[in-house]
Each structure stands twice: as structure tokens, then as C-alpha cells.
């Protein structure tokens, strides 16, 4: 055992003496700490964005109530009020930003037709978004494997080419040697990954719950997968340069090509023309209503809300009940397109997750986004939560409109508040499939390597 420990220490020293390895470690740690700091900043920005939506609602309400006489129709003032629908991000979302940069999770919703309000873009600069973003997930899933490759591609071939393999084999059996070399590399890579993750957890203020646990476990398994792959390739009887080319090639295929090809296929298989369709339909559905008698609009309104069918509106004067019912007509017109739109996006999401299992690093990355709730599904779930909120607001306010109640009849403290979307699946549901894919792929890589080494 002591001999083995000495072997390990010796190998560690050899590894860290290389200028390239040292530079890579410094670079990774630097990026990791920067990434962690940035994660903290992002979490802070997300919090202040949510707070801004809440404050803006309070300010707007105070302002409106101060300029409109208390006898003003509630419907008139409510036209201006935008209710906040803030979805607090999970703390772990700072580690895997996923699609957070392009999505809005603190919409403010008016009582008008909803479909036109749901798809607002974040203020993202397209130039930065197109360059890709740097979060800890990217560092650990895309860059860390390159470091593993860099320290392991010449695991055996390096000794062989240096003429030292036969020499060191005199002192220890092949398997023990290999174990020591692997252990020293695993310690080095593990230390880098641990520092990066710890920095991220500390600086972004992450609770160590099941979701964070699964994220760390997946990152660890993913790291093991790359070691297995490197070992599998290194056991073949090839030159160091051949190993380097093969491993770099595998990295390019798994990290760049597989996602790009799958994404292309996904877009071709699941087109989304409904986005424009629902926009056009909603606008037409609402505005046509102005040229129709109010009773026509109310009839289609009562179909969705039979409980209010007793509430007739006059035919010849403007009423707020009719006005908001016309807005509802816009959503009705867009309903089919909107449903189809969501279905296509859910299909895209499910398809991506299914096929990504063939490229385990991709599956890992998608799982991290899902655990952090920064994926497409989370956004769709958020939009559904906003839909429910809008319905609850309508339930609350329509009686005021039908009764032509004045604004001071509104009990503002009883207005429904937004209920954030709950995670659609448990942490295990998100984590298990990629974990199995990673374990199987690791076994496969090792098995192929061992067979080739024996052959």
C-alpha cells in the first residue's frame, strides 16, 4: 500500500510539473471562480428583476388611485393595472442557466387578452446570446472533459513512447501502475471540479437539496464517463497523437456535432408556424368584436363562463364587461393555435431529451437545465401558471365589471396573487435517465478498451 501511495505521489508530481497542465488548471480554476461570481450576480439580477415587477405594481396602483376619482369605473382603472407574475428562480439555476437568458420569468399581466402578453422577450443582447454563454454547467460539461483528455490521452502510450513503460513495469504490476496513474489524475480533476462546484454553491447561495444533489451527482458521473472513455482509448495499442485525435474527435462529436445535428432534425421534424398564427388570430378575434353587436361577443363569452350567462350587457352603450369579454374573444380565437404551439414545443422538448440519451454529455446538460428549471419545459410550465393566474384575476374582477362597480369597491388586498409553477417532475425523474446513460456508456467505453487491450 505504501508503495502504491508513493507511486501515486510521484505521478502527481510528474503531472503538475508540466507547464501545460499547470496552465490548464489555473485557467479552469480562474474560469470556475469567475463563473461562480457571475452566477451570484445573475441570481442577484434575477431577484432584483422580480422585485422590480412587484414594486412597479405597487407604484402604479398608488399612482392610478391617486389620479382617478374613487367613483371611476373599476374597468377603466384596471385597464392600466399590470399584475406581477414573478416566478422565483431556483438557487441552483445560477449554475445551469440553460435558456434563462432569453426567457422572461417576471411577466406582468393585464386583464386584456392574454396571448399577446405571454411571449415578451427578455432584454437580451442578441450578439452576446449568439456567442454562447458561460455558466458552471458549461465549464463542467464542455471544458472539464478537455482537461481530462489532456492529462489522460497518453496514459500508456506516453510511457511507451518515452521508453519508460518497460522500466516502470519492473517495479509494479501493470494493473496497479494504471490504477495509480488513474487515481492521480482523478484526484487532480476531482479537486478542480470540487473547487469549482463549491465556489458556485457558496457564491450563488445554493441550498443542498435533492435537486442540487442530483446536479452534483450527474457532474461526477459525467466526469467518470470521460475517464472511462479516455482509459478505453488509451488501452488500445496506438500512438499518443492518434489517441489525442480520437479523443478530441469524440469530444467534438458529443459536444458540438450531436447537439447541432439533433437540434436541426428536431426543428425540421417539429416546425412551429403556430407562433405567428396565434398572434394573427388573437388580434383579429378581439378587433372583429368591435364591429359586432355586444350580444354576439357575450354569447361566446358565456360558452366559456356559463356561471355568468345571467349577466347581460346593454347593446347600445359601452360597458367594461363587454370590453373585457371582447378581449377574451381574442384569446378564444387564438386558442387552437396556442394549444398547438405549446404541444409542438413540448414535443420538441421530449424528443430532445429522448434522443440526447445517445450522447450522454448532452443528456447531462439537458438534465442540469431541467434540474435548475431553466429549460424549455420550465418556461412552458411558467406560461401555464400565468394562464391560471389570468383566469383567477378574471374570476375576481368580472363581477365588478358586470356590476359597473367603482374603483373604490375593489378590495385590493384580496386580489389573487401569482402562484409560481411547481417543478413538473421530481429531481430523480430528471436525473435517473442521464445517469443510466452515463453508466452504460462508461461501461461500454471501458469494455471496448479492455477487449482491445487483450486482443
Amino acid at each position, binding site marked *: 500500500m505504501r508503495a502504491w501511495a508513493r507511486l501515486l505521489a510521484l505521478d502527481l508530481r510528474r503531472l503538475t510539473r508540466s507547464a501545460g497542465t499547470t496552465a490548464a488548471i489555473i485557467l479552469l480554476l480562474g474560469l470556475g471562480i469567475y463563473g461562480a461570481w457571475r452566477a451570484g450576480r445573475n441570481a442577484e439580477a434575477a431577484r*432584483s428583476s422580480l422585485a422590480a*415587477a412587484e414594486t412597479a405594481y405597487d*407604484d402604479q396602483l398608488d399612482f392610478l388611485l391617486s389620479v382617478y376619482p374613487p367613483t371611476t369605473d373599476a374597468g377603466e382603472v384596471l385597464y392600466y393595472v399590470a399584475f406581477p407574475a414573478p416566478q422565483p428562480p431556483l438557487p441552483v439555476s445560477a449554475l445551469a442557466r440553460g435558456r434563462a437568458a432569453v426567457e422572461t420569468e417576471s411577466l406582468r399581466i393585464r386583464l386584456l387578452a392574454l396571448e399577446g402578453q405571454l411571449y415578451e*422577450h427578455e432584454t437580451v443582447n442578441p450578439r452576446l446570446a449568439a456567442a454562447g454563454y458561460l455558466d458552471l454547467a458549461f465549464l463542467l460539461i464542455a471544458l472539464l472533459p478537455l482537461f481530462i483528455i489532456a492529462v489522460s490521452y497518453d496514459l500508456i502510450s506516453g510511457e511507451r513512447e518515452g521508453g519508460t513503460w518497460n522500466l516502470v513495469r519492473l517495479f509494479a504490476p501493470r494493473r496497479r501502475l494504471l490504477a495509480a496513474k488513474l487515481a492521480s489524475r482523478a484526484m487532480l480533476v476531482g479537486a478542480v471540479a470540487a473547487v469549482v462546484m463549491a465556489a458556485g454553491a457558496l457564491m450563488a447561495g445554493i441550498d443542498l437539496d435533492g435537486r442540487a444533489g442530483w446536479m452534483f451527482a450527474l457532474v461526477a458521473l459525467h466526469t467518470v464517463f470521460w475517464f472511462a472513455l479516455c482509459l478505453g482509448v488509451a488501452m488500445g495499442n496506438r500512438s499518443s497523437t492518434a489517441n489525442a485525435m480520437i479523443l478530441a*474527435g469524440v469530444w467534438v462529436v458529443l459536444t*458540438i456535432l450531436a447537439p447541432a445535428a439533433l437540434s436541426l432534425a428536431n426543428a425540421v421534424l417539429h416546425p412551429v408556424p403556430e407562433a*405567428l398564427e396565434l398572434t394573427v388570430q388573437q388580434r383579429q378575434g378581439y378587433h372583429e368584436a368591435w364591429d359586432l353587436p355586444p350580444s354576439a361577443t357575450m354569447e361566446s363569452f358565456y360558452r366559456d363562463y356559463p356561471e355568468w350567462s345571467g349577466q347581460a350587457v346593454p347593446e347600445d352603450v359601452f360597458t367594461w364587461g363587454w370590453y373585457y369579454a371582447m378581449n377574451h374573444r381574442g384569446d378564444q380565437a387564438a386558442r387552437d393555435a396556442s394549444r398547438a404551439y405549446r404541444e409542438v414545443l413540448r414535443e420538441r422538448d421530449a424528443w430532445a431529451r429522448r434522443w440526447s440519451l445517445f450522447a450522454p454529455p448532452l443528456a447531462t446538460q439537458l438534465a442540469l437545465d431541467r434540474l435548475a428549471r431553466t429549460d424549455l419545459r420550465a418556461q412552458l410550465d411558467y406560461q401555464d401558471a400565468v394562464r391560471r393566474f389570468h383566469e383567477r384575476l378574471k374570476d375576481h374582477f368580472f363581477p365588478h365589471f358586470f356590476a359597473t362597480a367603482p374603483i373604490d369597491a375593489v378590495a385590493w388586498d384580496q386580489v389573487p396573487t401569482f402562484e409560481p409553477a411547481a417543478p413538473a417532475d421530481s429531481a430523480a425523474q430528471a436525473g435517473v435517465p442521464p445517469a443510466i446513460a452515463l453508466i452504460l456508456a462508461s461501461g461500454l467505453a471501458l469494455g471496448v478498451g479492455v477487449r482491445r487491450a487483450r486482443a
Partner: protein
Amino acid sequence: MRNAPEGLRNTLLIARRQLGAVRQDGYVLFLLGLVVALGLVAALGARHHVASETEQRDRYQAMVDRQWLEQPERHPHRVIHYGFLVFREQAPLEFVDPGVSDYAGTSIYLEGHRQNTANFGEARHSTGMTRFGRLTPASVLALLLPLLVVVAGFAAVSAEREGGTLGVLLTQGATPAQILAGKVLATGAVGALATLPVALAVGVMAGPGLDSPASVTRLGVLAGIYGIYLAGWVLVTVLVSAVRTSSRSALAQLLALWVVICVATPRVAASVAGALYPLPSRAELTAQVEQALNEVGDSHRPDDPFFNALREEYLERYQVGAVEDLPVNWRGVLSRESEALTSRVFEDHRQELVKGHLRQNKVMAWSGFLSPYLAARDLSMGIAGSGPEATEAFLAQAEAHRYTIIQRLNELHIREIRNENDRAQRLSREHWGQFPVFGTEPPPLGGALADRPVSLAALGLWIGLPLTGLGLARRRLALVGTERSS
């Protein structure tokens, strides 16, 4: 000895020798096939994407235009709320390089009193798989071809040294410059071999778009930019191969360089740009706009100071006692003035945001000196017409269009609608045909290049530095040769 034909012959001989070695290298051939196949798939996929986007855009724009013309008799203010939908056109070479298009919205609803955001960018419909962007001809050329060049050329000089043949070549009368030139030529030929099918496919697919000579020019300039970028990779590869002691370390160093230039730096630069010049979130921006709007006033509000003053002014000008007696429509006047005020608020805030984007983009441009990949992509999207300035031009043109249409409707309200019983009146349908149609012009090619001096300089440096390096390495190569042969 130094005469040109022989020098050229030696260079070509070396190049042929190198190509022979490459031809026997299974990895290079495999990668060559892969890059060509990917380039073709990328071109086909991108073409499909552009075709379906264009078809959709045309279909819905036609539908919206028809709906506008088929409006019944309406009150002009009704039409102000009805508004207009516009869709962004695809860039001239969108299918070669979609630039920032995926992250910018494709449709805007233009209506009175409000400035909406452009919605439904492709990125919002993607699953988060494409952290390296979509597979397009541009990404194959900028991201993957350098890898092929590296694999084809990392051993170009170092293998000769390791095999002891470098000294032989030198004693046979080949000068170091001829050796290096031959290696550069051969490695460049491999890169060109991979680029040609992709370029041809792009050229063929550009077919219908190539009616305009402007697109042909764009395609030519684009080819030039990628040619320079890849030539830089060829020079760097041969240079590293010439100065490293072993092929193995040359390969490791070149792969590390590729990771730093093509993978890490673009993201670090984007992240740093975002940290240096943070933007307000949508929620914060909306809150700011709301506050500013509250300050400028609202004609719907009773006792609004601005609009009270306006009323006094009009009553005085026309010497009447009440707004109902004005010869112009008072509600129309209110609506026009209110639109002018609120539009300025919206536009000021949007301009603030654009300024933030420009500051961030400047960081990206200067990062081109660290990552020629960024410089090449920046120039590429500019030439393709899919850069940030194109999406910004769309937003600016959409806002200008919105303002024109809304204010024309307000003028109609002021002139054609009587004060009494205002809301019951309607405008006849022939008015709807008299509004301008929306159309965007892609930013001109000359402007796109002139706006990117930093990226052009960075790309120049990417060629200049390794050339200088090769000049210096030439001397060292001669030394190595004498060491070996002595």
C-alpha cells in the same frame, strides 16, 4: 540556386510529399469526409430553415395586409388600436450565417400608445441543446474546418524532424523557406479541398437569391473572409509544427489553441461584456417606462396638467369657448399629441437599451484580437446581413412605420371626424388602401464592413503574426537542420 522556377519546384515537391503523407493518414481522410458531409447537411438544413421561415413570413404578412385592407368602415381611433403586424425578412445570406437572427424576435405588433417587443425568436423555440449554435455553413467553416487544418498539418514539419528527414531535405538543397512554404501549401490544399464542396453547395443553393448582383458580391466577400481566417489557421498550424520539438506536443498545443480561440474566449468575452455593461431586465425596463409615462401625462386622465394646457392653447388659437366648438376634432388632437409624447418615452428607453447593446458589442469586437473566430464571425454576419445592426434596423424601421401610420390615423381623426357624436362616426373603406406598406432594406455591404474596422484589423493580425513567426522560424529550422546533420 535561388532562381524562382527551382524555388517554386522545390516548394511544390515538398507540398506533394506532404500531401502524400496526408493521403495515407486515415484520420485526416475521415475528418475530411466528415467536414464535407457536415457542410452539406448544414447548407441543406439552413436552406430548409430559411425557406420555411420565408414561406411563413410571406403567408402571414399577406394575410395581415389583406386583413388591413378588408377592414370594414371604422373609426380611425379604432384602427389605431387594431394596429399592424410586421414580420422580419430573412437576411440576404441568412442560410450561410444566421448571425444573431435566432435571438432576435421575428414579429412585432405595431399599435397606438405602445411600443411592443419583437417576439418569437427561434431561440425561444429551441430546447437548449444548441450551446454551440445551430449547424450552419458558417459554423462548419469557422468552428470545424480549423480542426481539420490542425489534424492535417500538426506533424507537417515536426514529423520530418522526428523522422530525421528534415536534415535530408535541407542537404538536398531545399531552403527552410521552401520547406515551410510547401507545408503551408499542402495544409492549405487540404483545407481548400474541404471548403470547396461546401462553397459549391452554398453557391448552388443561393440560386434564386443570386438574381441580384449584390448577393453575388456578398458571397464573394464572405468567401474572402473565411479564406483569410482559414489561411491564418494553416499558417499557425505549420508554425507550431515547426517550432515544437515533437508532433505530440504540437498537436496538444494546437488543440488547446483551438479550444481557447473557438470555444472558451467567445463565451468569456460575452460574459465579461454582460458583466461590464449590465442591461436592465425587461421587468425593470417596463417599470422605468411606466414611471416616465406617468410623468408625461395621459389625455384619458382627468385634470392632466399637460393636456389642460394644450386645451387652453387650442381654445385661444381658435377663439372658441369649448373644445366641442373647435373646427378640428379635439379628441384627435389629444390622441396625436399624446402619441408624440409617449412614443418619445418608449423610443428614448429603447435607445438606451440599444446603447447598452452597442457598448457590449464593442467588447465583443475587441475580443476579436484574442479570438480570430469572433472576428471572422462578426465579419461573416455583417456580410450575410444578419448582424445586430440588421435586427436593430428592423426594430427602428418598424417603430418609424408604427409612428407614421398612427399619426396619419390621428390626422384623419382630426380632419374627417366631427366633434359631436365623435365615436359613432366611421371612415369609409377606401382610406385603408392609402397607407404605406412596410418593407425593410438589409444594411448595405459597404456599411457592414466599414462598421467593423476592429474585426478587420484582428483578422489582419491573425494572418500577419504567424507570417512573421514563420519568418523567424525559418532561421531556427536551418539551425535544427545543421544540428541534425552534424
